[in-house]
């Protein structure tokens, strides 16, 4: 009888542990997705954006990336480890060339390879218009690595998957 009781308690504890792990990891996944969604919103640009709004968005971008952050984006000739301020500068300059931009993330999958580490695999779609009048219509598969620093998930690596290698 005692054995049965202990066995039941053990089963309940295991179930509770698994439940807690599942709920906690779900929350972490939501946090990672929220950070990426904030990044997409901060990179996007509405027509007629004010300087104040732009400044706010640049601060948001800065708050979402690690210092330094590794970038592997051959299409924009970015490869290597860059300080946070430099990346914010690149983003600001890139946005200046656009009259409007919209960045969205799709097919987002998040995994946690270790303690305070997350990997995100997603499709990024960039649409809009350059100031020259040309339209922007790009889609890329992206792999990101995030690090949890002081309870915040920060992007420490962004890599555009090279599908066609010349």
């Amino acid at each position, binding site marked *: 009888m005692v054995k049965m009781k202990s066995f039941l308690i053990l089963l309940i504890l295991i179930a509770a542990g698994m439940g807690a792990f599942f709920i906690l990891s779900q929350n972490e996944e939501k946090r990672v997705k929220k950070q990426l969604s904030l990044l997409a919103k901060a990179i996007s640009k509405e027509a007629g954006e004010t300087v104040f709004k732009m400044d706010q968005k640049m601060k948001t971008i800065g708050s979402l990336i690690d210092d330094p952050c590794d970038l592997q984006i051959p299409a924009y000739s970015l490869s290597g480890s860059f300080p946070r301020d430099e990346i914010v500068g690149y983003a600001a300059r890139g946005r200046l060339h656009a009259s409007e931009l919209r960045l969205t993330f*799709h*097919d987002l999958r998040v995994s946690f390879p270790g303690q305070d580490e997350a990997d995100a695999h*997603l*499709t*990024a*779609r960039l649409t809009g218009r350059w100031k020259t009048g040309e339209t922007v*219509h790009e*889609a*890329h*598969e992206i792999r990101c690595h995030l690090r949890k620093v002081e309870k915040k998930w920060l992007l420490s690596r962004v890599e555009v*998957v090279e*599908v*066609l*290698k*010349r």
Partner: protein
Amino acid sequence: MNIKRSIRQFFLPSLTPAFLFRVGFITLLAYLIFGHLLIPLRIQGYSMEPTYQNGAINFCWRLRYLFSPPKRGDVVVIRFAGQHVTLLKRVVALENEEVEFREGRLLVNGTPLEEPYVRSPYRWNLPPRKVEPQTVYVVGDNRSGSIENHFFGQVSLKRILGSPLW
């Protein structure tokens, strides 16, 4: 009277178990066919002109390469990003072959390739390179304009989803 009833029955059928079963079966069949076997695709862009026109509708036949790998000259559907962004390209070289562009002519293992599907190619130049194992070399049929403005290169066989139905 009977015709009227038949028409009414056709447009407003009674929700009998047999009818619900038929609807369920057709929905499942449509999901399996158009979600996994014959995936609808709309061509956006001009990279495969004149063979495939911008805006054309086609289907990706997923079982095309189930038992045999793609051959030279095949047009293939490539998973570019996520589950929904695909590319349509032509296989021009297979693994371990050497591929090169010289003054707009495509050379495979040093021999010029006959390409009746290419109209007025630009004078592309690309030094020889070997196609890695488990990959094929793909290029679009539209070779007009500078080489920098085109997406082509070697792609992993794992990314090939199938071929266009027509």
